[in-house]
């Protein structure tokens, strides 16, 4: 069984909500990323989404755009991400890792080469922001053949018909983007999310995880009541931005923020 499925099965048995942090790999510099990943797991992360830096992150707000710029300044590439995941796996063979990013770096490497290396490194899932299932005819089977799961986004604007298509292609979990907008935007309406998730549950058996707009323990707990998982990105990446000149301070801050969310979710 894939690590992602295994993790959700365990969480379900425990009656707990998945806490899924996102970090852009190579931010503020490549040598820190693996340490951050371990810190996140210590603070209660169930799955880690590792962002692949891209020059043109069209669906991301300024916080993650700048993270991409910092990572790219150090030349962070897919090859480095694979090395990071390999190193992470030396100590942690349980926590699922999902690569999240845009299609062009993968296209340039080639689907098969990408999938071979991702599998060998110990990656569990791939979320390609600008690749909806309709365009994944070729890529999807390449991933599947190597036991890598394709994670897809669902939006408030997704029609029932599309949600059906996405559920049919999706694996691991559905990533529900709780706001219209780019990552890191401000407000969040839990009732609205709940109303949108209800029809999805009829269409899909996949765990529903909500991302975009989760900032602290309170918002995490509120969303955790209506979803199987909460995804937190910009608020963590914002901490890295605040500490670029003092990288030693980053891991403790990440642990504080994520730890508070873990406590709030488990309370």
């Amino acid at each position: 069984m894939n690590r992602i499925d295994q993790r959700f099965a365990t969480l379900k048995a425990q009656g707990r909500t998945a806490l899924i942090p996102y970090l852009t790999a190579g931010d503020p510099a490549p040598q820190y990323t693996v340490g951050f990943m371990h810190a996140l797991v210590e603070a209660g992360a169930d799955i880690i989404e590792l962002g692949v830096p891209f020059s043109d992150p069209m669906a991301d707000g300024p916080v993650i755009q700048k993270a991409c710029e910092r990572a790219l300044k150090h030349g962070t590439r897919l090859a480095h991400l694979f090395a990071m995941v390999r190193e992470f796996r030396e100590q942690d063979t349980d926590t699922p890792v999902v690569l999240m990013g845009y299609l062009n770096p993968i296209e340039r490497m080639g689907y098969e080469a990408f999938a071979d290396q991702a599998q060998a490194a110990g990656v569990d899932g791939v979320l390609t922001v600008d690749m909806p299932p309709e365009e994944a005819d070729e890529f999807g089977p390449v991933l599947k053949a190597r036991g890598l799961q394709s994670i897809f986004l669902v939006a408030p604007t997704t029609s029932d018909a599309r949600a059906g298509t996405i559920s049919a292609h999706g694996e691991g979990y559905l990533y529900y983007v709780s706001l219209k907008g780019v990552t890191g935007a401000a407000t969040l309406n839990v009732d609205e999310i709940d109303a949108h998730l209800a029809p999805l549950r009829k269409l899909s058996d996949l765990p529903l995880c909500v991302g975009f707009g989760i900032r602290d323990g309170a918002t995490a707990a509120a969303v955790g009541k209506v979803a199987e998982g909460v995804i937190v990105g910009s608020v963590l990446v914002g901490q890295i931005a605040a500490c670029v000149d003092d990288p030693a301070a980053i891991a403790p801050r990440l642990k504080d923020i994520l730890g508070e969310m873990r406590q709030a979710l488990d309370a």
Partner: protein
Amino acid sequence: MTKFSDLTRMPDARGHFGAYGGRFVSETLSFALEELEETYMALRDDPDFQAEFDHDLAHYVGRPSPLYHAERWSRELGGAQIWLKREDLNHTGAHKVNNTIGQALLAKKSGKPRVIAETGAGQHGVATATVAARLGLECAIYMGAEDVERQKLNVYRMQLLGATVIPVESGSRTLKDAMNEALRDWVTNVDNTFYIIGTVAGPHPYPMLVRDFNAVAGREAREQSLKQIGRLPDALIACVGGGSNALGLFYPFVEDEDVAMYGVEAGGDGVETGRHAAPLTGNAPRGVLHGNRTYLMSDEGGQVSDTHSISAGLDYPGVGPEHALWKDVGRVNYVAANDKEVLEAFRELTHVEGIMPALESAHALAYAKVLAPTMRPDQHIVINLSGRGDKDILTVAKLDGIEI
């Protein structure tokens, strides 16, 4: 093997031009694109919609634009006869308005009160601000900070028209970054905002509908050639950034196999220097950006390359997906003109014919200088003079060391 007659039937139902095009977007935008596709497909062959479009083109844009025989320049070049399709004479001074008129009609049908656009040279921004003013729509234009600097006149022009111009500081601060930012705006405000994309790129259905709206220039040029030359021309030339004016001219001639076509990309300092914006001529790899698969300048890690061109309107690392297909099947010859050749052509047409071309359009003229002398005086070339050069006066003056 794709037959040329197949090319007129592209894209397929999912917006693919062979291996190119498609709809590579974040899920948040899928609904808006499906809605736009549905609206457009319902109206595309609707006689009332066509009539409204044609009426606006005639009475607001001033179409048809003339096909002008540049006799003196033809003589100087000493070869083929040069004919200029005068898109520079359109209202707002470029071909861009053909598309914004069409998309404004779609925006009106959608009932959305706000339009946004990206712009490079500012011509598409001006054309969008113009139709927004006419329809009383709120309008925001995203423009790379570097382009805001080099196209000051158009920035103020947009502001006079009532648009908000938002300088984009991220990335290379040019057209691609403006498009990123416009897409981010659209993702955020998709409920009340219609995105007027300015070129034949972006996610399906944009490459198709922008082509369709621009094809009026090619249809006119075909008819005018038959009437004024007495037959079809031997060759067509147009500049290619995203490629909307080129597709507009070429598309109605696609099945005329005896008509050669030349798409002229921005060679910048020279394609061999790497400082250019010529993905087709420079043999860039396939890639995915801004919602479509195409040829895309990127490094080995798949990061999109910075581009260079004297003309802000061509300073883009990708190209419309239909051009990528046309390169593969060999229907169009893609070539490049470098900045120096472009400036020479700009000055030459201004001096010899009293027509000041946009620096973008001067790329097509620069290639005419290469092609025409290899042809006979009884042969004919039609060039899309896609825009006028008033907006570039400050750029050229600066190169001449003149402060205005």
